[in-house]
């Protein structure tokens, strides 16, 4: 039995990387358009970020510094696992600091710290098709994109307003990219949508199981769908982060006991830690330190 134990730099063979880079280039050339690519089986399961991992593997070089987050945190199990994967197969430097990273692979969040030119944000995408839950057939949705037929999406948002008084979509909130394609920002909370607009960083989206790659080049117009009388708005939290006191950031609700006591803390762990290091304190930071 002969099992090859050594893998190519960043796991994928060079032909596969070339195929994926071509798809990425096409995606950048047509912002928001979903480019089919022949996604490979990866050594982690579909649904664990195989699309993002393939994109990262295709663009990463020995000099890159990689950060991986899941739910905004560097220390969630799957983020740890993917970071360890690239540390092993590409021997690249990894970091938890947003500012130091050249490539940031993410699931469900965009870092709070503003990304800058030269950085690339790689999103893990489960269902790339924003119209999928309105029309399950790929043959139909591709036609709808081709004809720019997005009425169905507006009807859905309108029905939300008619039923609930406001749009009830809170994550994976659809956006229109450069005035043309309606795009799924992956299941990030809509709180993060404005960060995609005119971002200095390149944003790449990889959906492994669904075999699609799409992109938002730097300085691209990204508009969350809304109505004149019901403008798009992001989530607001009543309190600042209990640990670092940050306001206007996305917070996680942490249950403290079985009597309904809870605290709200930063979802972006790096941002929270940097603020603490800079001396910022929240109302429960003393308690946290005491534990």
């Amino acid at each position, binding site marked *: *039995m002969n*099992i090859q134990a050594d*893998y190519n730099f960043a796991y994928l*063979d060079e032909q596969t990387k070339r195929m994926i880079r071509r798809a990425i280039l096409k995606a950048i050339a047509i912002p928001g358009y979903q480019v*089919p690519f*022949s*996604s*490979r*089986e*990866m*050594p982690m*399961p*579909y*649904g*664990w970020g*195989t699309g993002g991992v393939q994109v990262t593997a295709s663009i990463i070089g020995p000099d890159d510094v990689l950060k991986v987050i*899941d*739910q*905004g*945190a560097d*220390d*969630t*199990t*799957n*983020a*740890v*696992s993917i970071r*360890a994967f690239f540390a092993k197969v590409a021997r690249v430097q990894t970091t938890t600091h947003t500012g130091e990273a050249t490539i940031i692979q993410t*699931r*469900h*969040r965009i870092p709070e710290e503003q990304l800058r030119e030269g950085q690339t944000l790689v999103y893990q995408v*489960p269902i790339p098709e924003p119209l999928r839950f309105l029309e399950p*057939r*790929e*043959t139909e949705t591709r036609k709808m994109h081709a004809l720019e037929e997005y009425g169905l999406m507006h009807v859905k948002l309108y029905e939300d307003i008619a039923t*609930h*008084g406001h749009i*009830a979509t*809170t*994550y*994976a909130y659809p956006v229109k990219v450069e005035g043309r394609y309606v795009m799924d920002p992956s*299941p*990030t*909370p*809509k*709180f993060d949508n404005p960060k995609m607009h005119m971002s200095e960083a390149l944003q790449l989206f990889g959906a492994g*199981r669904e*075999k*699609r790659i799409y992109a938002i080049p730097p300085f691209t117009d990204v508009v969350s769908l809304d109505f004149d009388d019901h403008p798009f708005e992001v*989530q607001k939290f009543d309190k600042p982060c209990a*640990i670092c006191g940050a306001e206007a950031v*996305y917070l*996680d*609700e*942490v249950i*403290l006991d079985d009597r309904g006591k809870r605290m709200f*803390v930063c*979802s972006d762990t790096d941002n929270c830690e940097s603020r603490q290091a800079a001396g910022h304190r929240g109302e429960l930071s003393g308690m*946290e330190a005491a*534990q």
Partner: protein
Amino acid sequence: MYVAVKGGETAINNAHKLLADRRRGDRDVAALTLSQIKEQLSLAVDRVMAEGSLYDRDLAALSIKQARGDIIEAVFLLRAYRTTLPRFGYSLPVDTGEMKIERRISATYKDLPGGQMLGPTFDYTHRLLDPELVEDEAAGEPETREPDAGHTQRVSYILANEGLIEGDGKNGHGAEVPGDITRTPTEFPMNRDERLQSLSRGDEGFLLSLAYSTQRGYARSHPFVGEIRIGEVDVEIEVPELGFSVPVGRVQVTECQMVNQFQGSAKVPPQFTRGYGLVFGQLERKAMAMSLCDRALRARELGEDIVAPAQDEEFVIAHADNVQATGFVEHLKLPHYVDFQAELGIVRQMRREYAERNDAVSEMIKEAAE
């Protein structure tokens, strides 16, 4: 507590250690060898090779061992390895007429050239637990005879002689270049060669249930098993430098030719149509299910009404792959608390608005009553 989400790395390492321990089980029990798995769990090996799309008994046995007998996990292990292999080219079509047959049955003829041969089948066993297998029982030597040399005519040819059944058809790419679902992204509608590839690596359970649904009236196609044959076939590739083909090895396959009724149309006289199944190894159930699904999926091509799930190509093909399916279903156990927080927020807001509306209504009723 908040701190509990930290330490993911240690948790993962410890989980892997515990997994290795549980996989090995009681150390007083001898470890399974790959040859034991290959020889004595050979149908599991076959299934893993078929759905893993890689004909390698050793690696399939290894993946079964590593997966603790979880077949879908084993398929995934094999696939993840397969995808790292370079593709040298494609073989010539295997000639199943030249198969070294171990089992061959036809339900449409009492007897036929080449004969009926039961082979190693469960079909007529009585499903009574056999206490002798508890220990290392001595198995008797099987009856064997010299295989018939050469060609064993396929049932489809017997019918084709009378023009009663459709021909083999052409692959959808014009030139004789087969599609490759592992190298090109899925696009619908698919050509039949790509569809057959997808079915051949599709989940046995999923295809079995869909095939069953066609028998129960959801796209009934009046099927007959024209023939099932199991045995080894030569795989040959063409070497451009030589100008002729050379065998590169033999693989065991199961082939099922389903014969289905077709009323005919304005262009075609009534004739039988075919559903086709071909899988690695001895996987009769899978080959039969595949051929029923193949036939059902030809509805569009044959101008039949598409009324049932088994006829719906996008539905069947997009959901037949168990590595994809298990990944996406199981990914729900990954953390989703950021999205859940967003949903919590909106549900709280909607409950607040609901309560305010109700209060306002009861206020109005009260005022009206006064």
